Structure formats: structure tokens, C-alpha cells
């Protein structure tokens, strides 16, 4: 049981009143399971990832990651949790422009204070996994959008996370590359036994998911994947 949200509510101040970004969200994502989250813009999908990723605190309800409840953790404890338990893949890959592909991964080892030799082995292994061994010396601007996202996935897995949080990884990619990236996410979820939450607008990827959830006005409804697929095909 790697990610667990129970009755989570998140509100943001907006002038006199507050916007409810997440409203009574309860969901569990187990290790080795990939959940896709769809929903209209502004419905709260990114906020869900932010709460699960210890970037935003829940106003009420409980969130726990790999068995650790987030409530009451200080800033440095949350930094530590993100470092050791959580991997992020972002919409724009968010690679650092000055780092080579290998260095993007080694940075994680450096932040975690790992032995360089150990991080080097892990980085090599992960780059081979995402099919980028030949590009390890390149910088982000020398990569295609799909390759950048694959580096992002490898980087997210560097710290052996229990939870993988992915925000619209394919929105900047064409159909074929998007499918490649999404397939890879499904594969690494099974291989690395991460609990994976992927936010996407694109309903064509739903068949790859173990579970599908729909966000609407801050409320999360977990759907049966076959029904969601059926609707996507209509």
C-alpha cells in the first residue's frame, strides 16, 4: 500500500473565500499499480499530485506515502521523503539545461549523498532501460521531446522511489512518442514495483492503466478501466 489518501481536502485562498481544489478524496494506489487520472482543466489533478508528493499540505484528511503519514512532517522531513521515496516526472521533463543525460541522473545520487560508483551503475542501468545509452553525453537541448521525457522517467527512478507521480507527460509529444512514454511508464511501474499516478488528458492511454480515475471539481471517482475505455472509444 504505497499511496493512501483518506478524505483529503485542499483549499486555496481566493480573495474573500477559498477555492476547493480537492474535495474529500479517498484513494489507494498499491505498489506495482499504475493509476491514470483524467479530468477537465482546473479540476484538481495537479493538486492531487502535489498533495501525494508532499509539495502541498492537505487541509484535512490523511495522506501517507509508503506507510509514512505526511501530517506533521517538517519541511526538511518532507524534502527527505521526496528524495528517498518519491519520483516525479513533469510535463516539460524539467531537465537542467547544463547537465548531460547521465548527470541528470547522477544529480539525484549526489543530492542523496550516495557513493558515486553506486549512482553511476544505477544511472547506466536506468539509461539502458529507457533506451538512451547512446545519448548519455547529450544535453537536454540535443534531445527530442520523447527522449527528454524518458530521461525524466529514468531520473525519477534513480532514488528507487515507492511512489511515482507523473503530470501530463505526453502533452508535448506526438502520438507515437506519447504512446512510447506511456508504455514505458506502465512497464517500469511493474518492474520497479512503484505505485504510479499519471495525470493525462489523453483518453487513448487508458487501456495501459491498471486503474482509471476521473477528477471533476476536486472530486475523484475511480472508474473501471474497461468502462472508461469504452467511453473513450465513443
Amino acid at each position, binding site marked *: 500500500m504505497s499511496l493512501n489518501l483518506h478524505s483529503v481536502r485542499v483549499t486555496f485562498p481566493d480573495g474573500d473565500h477559498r477555492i476547493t481544489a480537492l474535495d474529500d478524496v479517498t484513494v489507494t494506489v498499491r505498489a506495482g499499480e499504475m493509476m491514470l487520472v483524467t479530468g477537465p482543466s482546473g479540476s484538481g489533478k495537479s493538486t492531487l499530485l502535489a498533495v501525494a508528493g508532499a509539495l502541498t499540505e492537505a487541509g484535512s484528511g490523511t495522506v501517507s506515502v509508503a506507510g509514512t503519514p505526511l501530517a506533521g512532517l517538517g519541511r526538511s522531513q518532507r524534502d527527505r521523503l*521526496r528524495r528517498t521515496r518519491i519520483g516525479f516526472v513533469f510535463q516539460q521533463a524539467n531537465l537542467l539545461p547544463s547537465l548531460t543525460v547521465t548527470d541528470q541522473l547522477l544529480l539525484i545520487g549526489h*543530492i542523496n549523498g550516495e557513493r558515486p560508483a553506486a549512482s553511476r551503475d544505477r544511472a547506466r542501468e536506468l539509461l539502458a532501460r529507457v533506451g538512451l545509452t547512446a545519448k548519455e553525453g547529450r544535453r537536454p537541448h540535443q534531445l527530442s521531446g520523447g527522449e527528454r521525457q524518458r530521461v525524466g522517467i529514468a531520473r525519477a527512478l534513480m532514488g528507487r522511489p515507492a511512489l511515482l507521480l507523473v503530470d501530463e507527460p505526453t502533452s508535448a509529444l506526438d502520438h507515437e512518442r506519447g504512446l512510447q512514454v506511456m508504455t514505458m511508464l506502465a512497464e517500469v511501474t511493474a518492474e520497479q514495483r512503484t505505485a504510479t499516478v499519471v495525470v493525462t488528458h489523453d483518453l487513448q492511454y487508458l487501456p495501459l492503466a491498471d486503474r482509471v480515475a476521473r477528477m471533476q471539481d476536486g472530486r475523484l471517482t475511480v472508474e473501471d478501466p474497461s468502462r472508461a475505455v469504452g467511453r473513450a472509444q465513443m
Partner: protein
Amino acid sequence: MFIAFRDLRYATGRFALVGSVITLMSLLVVLLSGLTAGLSAASVSAVSALPVGSVTFEQPADGSEIDFATSSLPVDTVARARALPEVTSVHPLGISTGRVTKDGRTSAATFIGTDTALLPEFRSGTAPGPGEVAPTAGLAAELGVTTGDRLTVGALALTVSGVTLDTSFSHLPVLYTGIADWQQLAHTSTITALGVDTSDRAAVDQALGTRTTSREDAFAGVGGYTSEQNSLDAMRWLLIGISALVVGSFFTVWTIQRRHDLAVVRAIGGTPGYLLRDALGQAAIVLLVGAALGAVAAIGLGALADGVVPFALTVGAVAQPLLIMFGLGLVGAAVAVRTVATVDPLTALGAS
């Protein structure tokens, strides 16, 4: 400094630009320091070379400060000072300016009349006796004289008894004489001041009605010294301040540009401390390299300019302004990059 080193290599152009600004600034600062020290030597090295702890001036009039040009003491002050129990040694000092001639070659000089005990070291020859003078090496070269040659000052003809190491007073080379000959050169029956060693300056002034200062404070009695040094110092501090601002602005812009990247590093678990160390390390490298290059260039230029302009560099004169520049630059950078600690990792999520 995992990211810092890679940024330096990746954004070479940008860092080279700010690095060369720092290089030029430290070049200017070190040159200015050398010039300050050089001008100081040209102005007061004859005073700083005096082997006494204090200088006794005539009590200046109300509202005036000590001044070698206006100070005047009766000759018997020497004997009266010598009689004081707090005083261990007393030497008369006569200081005036004039022109000295040798075979049609004329040079302006400061005439200093005093005891043998207060003369600087000799390069050749001996201390001047009656009717004799000792020019500094620079003055002797300018006039083309050596020991035994004769010089004229006004109507007086004097023999060169020896040549001293270089000293300078009020930007003029010095011609040393005995006090009696100096009085003739200066057309006076008084002396200018006393060089004394004393345990109690106040007691000396009480007994003699004079104004006694330490040798270093007596520099202010050389015309223009204080204002010259103050304006050079002000320029130096201004430059150091500007460099700190330049470094601060560069790193402010640089940090703002990188905000999104820094948010990403925060999101993937980098602590604010990690980012701060990285950013400060980067600033330190840029400052260190820039300052070192500037110092090397300044020392080189100083060596070339030596002799043309007064220029003096010591390890301290190079290191001190550079250390201050480095320190203030780092403060500027720290002020700029401290915002990296407040970057919200949440902004790494989503497109915006």
C-alpha cells in the same frame, strides 16, 4: 557544487562576461592601491624613514592643523626638550623646498636639515659635514652628480659628501644637509620641528608649548597628503562597492532565470541548503578567478608603470583590497541567491 561546475562549463560565455568585469574591477582596485601606496611614499617617505617615534611641531594656531610648511621653532627648543626627563632623544628638523643646480641642470627638491642620526642609509659616501650635502639616489641621478661634486643652491656652493637611498617629501626628492647649512639654504634662524623619542608626548607639549604627534600622525603635516590619500581611498572603496553590486546584480538575474530549474531540484528532494551551497560555491569560483586574474594583470601593469608613475605594491596592498572585494562580492551574491532557498518546489509541477 554538482550543478555549479556544470553551469560554469555550460554557460561559459555568461560567466566569462561577469568574470572579466570582476577581473577589470580588481585590476583597477589593485592599481589604485598601488598608486595610493606609491603616492603615499612620494609624499611622506622621508618622514616615515625618520628613526624616531614622534615629531614635535609648533603649536598650530586655533583652527589650523599641524603643517611642516608653517611650523617654526626657536633653535633653543632642542636644548629645552633635551632637558626633559620624559625625552630620550631629540634631533632638530629643518624642512623647506627650493631648487638645486649642477652645470645648468636644475631640479626642485625638499631640503631637510638634521643630525646625522636621522639620515637615511647611504648608498655611497658619508654624512654631510659643514658645507656639504647628501642628495638621494634619484636626485643625484637627475643632476648627474656623485660624491665630491659641487652643487649650487641659490648663491651657495655645496659639496656632495655622499648619496642616500631614495626618500621623498611632498613629491620632491630630498637633499640632506646639517641643520646649520639648512638654515642658510632656507634663510632662517629657526628650525621647523623636532624628531624626538619620548614616553609622554603630552608632557613634552606641556613643557614646551608645542604639538607632538606620532611619526605616522605627522604625515598629515605634509601638504596635500591627507586629502590625496582620502580621495584615493574613497575611489577604492567606491570601486569595491560597485563590484559587490555588479556581482550581486549578476547573480540576481542568474538566479531569477534559473528559478524554474531550482524549483525542480527542490521537488526532487534537494534541500534549500543544497541549493544555497551550490550557488554560493559558484559565486566564489567566479569571484576568485576574476580577482586572481585582475591581481596578476595589475602586478604586471604596475611593474611596467614603475618609474613612470609612483607605484608601490606589497603583498598586503594586493591582498587586502582583493579580500575585501571577494568578501563583499560574496555578500552581494549571497543576498542575490538567498532567494533560491525560498523557491517553491510546487512551481515545478504543471506547465505554468
